[in-house]
């Protein structure tokens, strides 16, 4: 069965304290791995797509990396406005998507 697991479930950081979020997956036929940000009461907002092991993408304070079994979202010197739930999703053969349960990030000023 295809599985996507995110850790930790919740993370509290001081402003400026860098950290990483993890997304591990066991799927067959991976076509892509996606990171989204979700604010309370809103739809997910696209951040990154990664397609092959070794790939990295950056956007402002965020950097996503991919291996054959997991992906990391690194947050460098976070700010309070980075507080949100970060979701990982995988696209498998065909056009189906599986999401993880997310990591709730709180950045304290």
């Amino acid at each position: 069965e295809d599985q996507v697991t995110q850790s930790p479930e919740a993370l509290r950081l001081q402003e400026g304290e860098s950290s990483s979020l993890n997304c591990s997956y066991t799927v067959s036929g991976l076509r892509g791995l996606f990171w989204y940000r979700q604010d309370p009461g809103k739809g997910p907002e696209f951040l990154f797509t990664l397609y092959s092991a070794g790939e990295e993408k950056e956007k402002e304070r965020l950097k996503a990396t991919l291996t054959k079994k997991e992906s990391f979202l690194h947050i460098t010197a976070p700010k309070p406005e980075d507080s949100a739930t970060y979701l990982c999703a995988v696209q498998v053969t065909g056009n189906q998507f599986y999401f993880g349960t997310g990591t709730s990030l709180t950045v304290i000023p």
Partner: protein
Amino acid sequence: EPEVTQTPSHQVTQMGQEVILRCVPISNHLYFYWYRQILGQKVEFLVSFYNNEISEKSEIFDDQFSVERPDGSNFTLKIRSTKLEDSAMYFCASSEAVGDYNEQFFGPGTRLTVL
């Protein structure tokens, strides 16, 4: 900036009633999706739609669900006979392509409450 819109923002219905949730995808997008998120749980894929037909559907998307693109702009999700467990946030998403470039843009969601 183009965006996906959804109506209504909140729908309350009685168990057994039919509901139609509406979405207007981004105009040049070709792939459309419905997801649901039960409160406190993960986002779950329901269905993807391309070229006026379903391309993939999950186990959740049973005979009670249907999707339609009735005109050039709207994309709807119909639940024929709602159950209490259908209460969730329903998100519509669209993308320009699939495969090498598949950034999905999500709408703000419709909160469905079944009483």
